[in-house]
């Protein structure tokens, strides 16, 4: 009632004093404390925090499954795990790391930080954002509960047909995998759309295209990759479900289908997927380097252009996953060329970062250490990538431990190390407290040593003939000692993550308070309190420079004129971010959660009967209708 009255008065932030402004904005934007209110939250920081924690929870599960596999492989013909459990574990490991950890965690950081970095009060489509989180959570739980019920998928995270088809994977295991894909794809697509709209329309006035922080650029490019890549795997997994559930024959060669079609569709998604994970990490690297080199990153324009170039090129590489399927030689050779070509924009980024560090006096805090680890490890992965891009060499190393080593160097070195750096970098912003530097340095050292000891020997094992995805190997193969070494390294790497967990738990309670800008960084997320208030900024900043906080040392220029009693944000033009209209951001709502429950129920049921889609559409329609029911908001009345 009071909100209504206030809206009629139309109080703006122009002439309010700070205390009054804070009180009114908090009342407008805050997430309530009751259970229903918490579940209804549409605050990007609340959802983002949940996203990050959930993704790290799945990292734990994926990591534990890796440790179990390494224990089994430490000795030849070990009897710790049988083929059944081992095959489930490597499937769960790959699926969890790719779909439930790597992609979501990058999106999670974007959900939390992109609105802060572009200077707005909430992400675009915040209810969709809440919905996407619930769908992600349900999809992940669905996968792991299935595993605990002994129906965990066991066909690999790539689920090649015919092995995953109805004939060779009876039961529900492959269906669980395929349906989990649908869950995570929906949530990924939703976030991608939110990020794009947030970046395009909600940037603070003055943040022209060439003032967008590099992390935001990276997330923008990633979001486009998601939108173009994910539909391919959704089509593929849907066709697989149809083959399995209603007897279509998309992939059955005996009935005119094609088993290679799956691989084309899967890798048309699967290769951009690698960049969906890696490109956000480059944004993190840029952010960390700028802050700890104490200068803007060298080569902003080439960096942005190479992000875009990598995005485009990543769609022209998928066949290099299929060099040994007997495709025509000349055609394959083109994909060698394109796969190697992507080294050029990626190399350019590395050179720009190195040039930045050259002309600086770097501050060696934990985030920067992780970035240095990133250089060391990721470049090895890039180099072995150049090797596997060559068709002839790939015929020897494809599907061996060499490739396992290669992509862990790329993904852990290229994405997880920057991510851990980002955790140390942004933890103070999220919690208001600093992580312990001492534990951080231990964490980094153990991760660095453990990683290399675990994964470098795999290069040699692959060349010595050890194929991937084997649950054991014969003693006379001579792979025992390197495998034992690798397993020991894996335990060290695992310990480093335990240290991170300890550090997070201890520091979240007792760490020194961070203040607004503990690293003296230049981008807008550091212009607000730590943790940020529900409304992010008391007044929307006006951006004058790529590193606004370095350009305006005393106080940030702001714009005024926004209503404080409704959830107003500024919507501007795409290129210049020239403010055009005041746009109301949606209120909290429980319906995204209910809609997610309805959708999850439908997907779950459809594993058992196609009719679930028909009957499930009813609750989905009801919840969506309620979600979008017009409420007569003040904006509509104006």
């Amino acid at each position, binding site marked *: 009632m009071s909100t209504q009255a206030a809206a009629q008065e139309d109080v703006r932030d122009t002439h309010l004093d700070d205390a009054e402004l804070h009180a009114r904005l908090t009342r407008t934007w805050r997430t309530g404390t009751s259970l229903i209110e918490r579940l209804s939250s549409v605050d990007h920081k609340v959802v983002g925090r949940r996203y990050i924690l959930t993704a790290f929870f799945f990292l734990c599960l994926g990591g534990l499954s890796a440790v179990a596999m390494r224990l089994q492989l430490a000795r030849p013909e070990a009897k710790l795990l049988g083929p059944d459990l081992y095959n489930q574990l490597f499937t769960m490991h790959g699926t969890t790391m790719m779909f439930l950890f790597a992609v979501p965690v990058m999106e999670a950081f974007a959900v939390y930080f992109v609105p802060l970095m572009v200077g707005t009060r909430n992400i675009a489509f915040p209810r969709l954002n809440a919905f996407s989180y619930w769908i992600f959570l349900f999809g992940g739980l669905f996968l792991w509960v299935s595993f605990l019920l002994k129906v965990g998928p066991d066909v690999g995270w790539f689920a090649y047909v*015919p092995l995953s088809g109805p004939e060779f994977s009876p039961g529900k295991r492959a269906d669980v995998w395929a349906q989990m894909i649908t869950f995570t794809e929906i949530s990924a697509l939703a976030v991608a759309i939110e990020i794009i709209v947030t970046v395009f329309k909600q940037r603070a006035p003055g943040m022209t295209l060439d003032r967008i922080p590099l992390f935001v650029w990276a997330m923008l490019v990633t979001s486009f990759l998601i939108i173009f890549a994910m539909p391919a795997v959704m089509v593929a997994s849907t066709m697989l479900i149809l083959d399995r559930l209603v007897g279509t024959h998309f992939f059955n060669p005996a009935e005119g289908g094609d088993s290679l079609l799956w691989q084309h569709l899967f890798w048309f998604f699967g290769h951009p997927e690698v960049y969906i994970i890696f490109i956000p990490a480059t944004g993190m690297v840029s952010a960390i380097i700028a802050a700890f080199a104490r*200068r803007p990153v060298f080569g902003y324009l080439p960096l942005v252009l190479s992000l875009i170039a990598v995005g485009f090129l990543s769609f022209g590489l998928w066949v290099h996953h299929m060099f040994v399927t007997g495709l025509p030689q000349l055609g394959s*050779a083109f994909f060698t060329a394109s796969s190697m*070509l992507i*080294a050029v924009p990626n190399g350019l980024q590395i050179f720009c970062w190195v040039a930045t560090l050259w002309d600086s006096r770097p501050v060696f805090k934990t985030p920067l250490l992780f970035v240095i680890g990133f250089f060391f490890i990721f470049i090895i992965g890039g180099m072995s990538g150049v090797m596997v891009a*060559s068709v*002839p060499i790939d015929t020897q190393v494809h599907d061996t431990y060499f490739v396992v080593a290669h992509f862990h160097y790329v993904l852990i070195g290229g994405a997880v190390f920057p991510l851990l750096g980002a955790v140390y970098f942004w933890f103070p912003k999220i919690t208001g407290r600093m992580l312990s530097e001492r534990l951080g340095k231990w964490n980094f050292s153990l991760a660095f040593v453990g990683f290399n000891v675990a994964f470098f020997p795999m290069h040699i094992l692959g060349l*010595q003939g050890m194929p991937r995805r084997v649950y054991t190997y014969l003693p006379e*193969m001579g792979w025992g000692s390197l495998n034992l070494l690798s397993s020991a390294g894996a335990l060290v790497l695992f310990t480093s993550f335990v240290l991170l967990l300890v550090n997070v738990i201890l520091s979240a309670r007792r760490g020194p308070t961070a203040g607004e800008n503990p690293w003296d960084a230049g981008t807008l997320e550091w212009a607000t309190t730590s943790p940020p208030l529900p409304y992010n900024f008391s007044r929307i900043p006006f951006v004058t420079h790529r590193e606004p906080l*370095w350009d305006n040392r005393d106080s940030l220029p702001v714009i005024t004129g926004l209503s404080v009693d409704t959830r107003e944000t500024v919507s501007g033009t795409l290129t210049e971010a020239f403010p055009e209209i005041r746009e109301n951001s949606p209120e909290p709502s429980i319906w995204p959660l209910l809609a997610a429950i309805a959708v999850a129920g439908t997907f779950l049921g459809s594993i058992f009967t196609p009719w679930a889609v028909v009957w499930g559409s009813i609750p989905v329609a009801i919840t969506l209708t309620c979600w979008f029911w017009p409420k007569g908001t003040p904006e509509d009345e104006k």
Partner: protein
Amino acid sequence: MRFRLIFTAGLVLWLTGCSGQQSALNPQGPHAEHLANLFWVFTAVCSAIWLAVMIVLVIGLARRAPARLDPLQLDRGRERRSVIMVSGTVVGTLLTVIALTALSFVSQRRLFAPDKPAITIKVTGLQWWWDVRYETDSPDQIVTTANEIYVPVGKPVAVKLTATDVIHSFWVPSLMGKLDLIPGQENELQFTASRPGIYRGQCAEFCGWQHAHMGLVVVALPVPMFQTWLSSQSLPAAEPEDPARKKGQEIFVSKACFMCHTVRGTSAGSRVGPDLTHFASRQTIASATLPMSRGNIAAWVLDPQGIKPGVNMPNVPLTPDELESLVSYLEGLR
């Protein structure tokens, strides 16, 4: 006598070929040698680049440029120098990439240029073994075996690859790179073995429970020995003479064995599992998982599910006497 000779010769080869037998870095044929050389060239170039970047990075981190009070105060001259350095390295990267692509392409053309093969072998991948068939013009000369491929030394060999269940991948790293066996498709791979020896290979595409134990061996023999082997393999199984083996044969054709296996010259003619006509002439059993020996045959027949869990061969209940006779019979299938 002849078979004995081959068997002993094979055994000697087995022992000599043991060191690094399944390794891409231990090439035993021109193709694998070319691949290993190409691999080392790439490794050298890539390691050099990595090392160079690391050195520059470490120097950059160590040299402690003067601290700047205002992070935005950039030195024009230094920025320009960075532009030149970065542009130079990008051009260098591009040239390296072009050179490596060209090198890769030339190698690819040479390695996969189809040669006129001396023999053609059809290999079909199944869960979890390899069906091997030597194609000849006269149908009565067709030789069928399993999990072991005999080839003549120094002759180009073509292997036609297909699968009837799921995708597998044929990989004998010391002879040639791998190629997939895909249902509904036939791929062809060529290689030559330079020296006599036994070269182990393994399925390289995940194919289910026993992917880890889907091995095979390639046995390269001098041409005359190969011809002897081939003609001996085309014969039907010898009729057992002593009573124990006779009894073993009766068990084979009356218990579950004959429902999956063929022994040419008997009523067992099913093609679900490996052809066992000359079973005991092989080096290994259970897809290159166990060395051929009386004890291993008994162990495998008694408990295949214990040795390779999930394998399609069931545990068949046999009395100790029956097992004894059956193993004797199998041992006699030379």
